[in-house]
């Protein structure tokens, strides 16, 4: 099929193209038209970038724990009280209950900021090694099992010297298996292991960071996501407040990034609500 002349690409085409909702044949035709019209291509690219930014900003909401009252509302109503629609919340109450969460968004332009899978730094490399070592251990991947999550967190917090948290990844289908202490740099590293229904494992490792991983120049912030692959283990890692975080697993980059987002969002939310 011959390519479309650029002027015959409508706004609807362009949007549907950006949203990947065009039929394959039409998509190919639009793509060919974009290849010949840089201005059109720039618009399509910008539409996609807008969507990505919005998702980046809003995805962390998905990782927040579901409030009790919403779980209760989702349960089948007892007969008689079905459908008692709650009154509009009193403003004062609403104001008091509003979580004041910070401004400043760490997600912007993640793709631009993620280092191309290049030479892993020591942190990423040791994270990948520790993951490979323990995730492969079917029977004893952790020292303390999730059943004792509370004492696990207390213990690791004590050993690391700062508050650590095991994010809740059940929303992504990963349950906490447990955790352990790993030798890292001069400080110990905490490792939390998670597993999904297919027995695929991922780990979150946290440690104090002395020498800073060089940040990506353009933005200079600490929380640049970086990506590395070491012996088939993918690692997303970032530095925040002198702590290093690494998510490792044998997943593809997109999956791993999604998980990293959720973890970052939860840790940020926990910190913002003062649990740190």
């Amino acid at each position, binding site marked *: 099929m011959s390519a479309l002349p650029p002027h015959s690409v409508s*706004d609807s085409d362009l949007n549907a193209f950006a949203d990947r909702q065009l039929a394959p044949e039409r998509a190919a035709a639009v793509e060919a038209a974009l290849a010949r019209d840089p201005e059109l291509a720039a618009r399509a690219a910008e539409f996609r970038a807008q969507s990505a930014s919005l998702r980046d900003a809003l995805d962390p909401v998905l990782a927040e724990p579901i409030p009790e009252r919403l779980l209760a509302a989702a349960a*089948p109503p007892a007969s008689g009280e079905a459908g008692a629609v709650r009154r509009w919340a009193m403003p004062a109450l609403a104001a008091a209950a509003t979580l004041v969460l910070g401004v*400043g968004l760490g997600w912007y332009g993640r793709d631009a900021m993620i280092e191309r899978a290049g030479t892993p730094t020591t942190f990423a490399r040791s994270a990948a090694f520790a993951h490979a070592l323990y995730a492969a251990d079917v029977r004893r991947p952790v020292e303390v099992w999730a059943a004792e999550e509370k004492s696990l967190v207390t213990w690791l917090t004590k050993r690391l010297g700062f508050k650590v948290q095991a994010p809740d990844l059940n929303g992504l289908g990963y349950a906490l298996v447990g955790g352990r202490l790993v030798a890292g740099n001069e400080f110990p590293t905490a490792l939390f292991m998670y597993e999904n229904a297919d027995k695929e494992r991922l780990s979150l490792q946290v440690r104090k960071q002395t020498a800073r991983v060089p940040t990506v120049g353009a933005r200079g912030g600490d929380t640049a996501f970086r990506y590395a692959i070491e012996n088939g283990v993918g690692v997303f890692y970032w530095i925040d407040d002198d702590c290093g975080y690494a998510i490792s697993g044998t997943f593809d980059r997109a999956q791993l990034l999604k998980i990293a987002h959720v973890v970052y969002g939860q840790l*940020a939310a926990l910190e913002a609500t003062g649990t740190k």
Partner: protein
Amino acid sequence: MSPSVTDAALPHPELVAAIPRLRRYARVLTGDATRADDLVQDTLARAWEKRRLWQAGTDLRAWLFTVMHNVHVNQLASFRREAANVSLDADPTGMAWQLPVRGNQVDRVELLEVVAQMGRLPADQREVLLLAAVEEMRYEEIATVLAVPIGTVMSRLSRAREKLRRLIAEPSSGLRIVK
């Protein structure tokens, strides 16, 4: 088990699974975390009330978004009757404050900017943009959720994106948040 009409029930696990997405959408509709959860709670209550309108086997999430849209529209209407001069529209600059993000990174203004600028879009355009870009719904689903023809979805979406593009390209002086 074949569901009978009289004891129709919603699939509980799917209902719970839909909550995070409902919360996310509600957060932007209302621009406020607590009001958003109020809206989700009302939506769930309404969904149980109207459970016979859901056809088993069809997409529960899309149906829940439809219910939420209606609840929201009704609440806005009744709220406006009670307080004619108070706008419940999301506060464009306040919205980003409700997102769970780090508190100390003012250098990442750009993403904040996109969300803030999105908050300046008219509500109907914002809804379509969110459903398409963030919820990644099919245009036909969006048309159903909002009860508008698909052509309206497309034109709102085009306008939303073009407007957002212009807003981002020429950031207004007042919206840059400096702490």
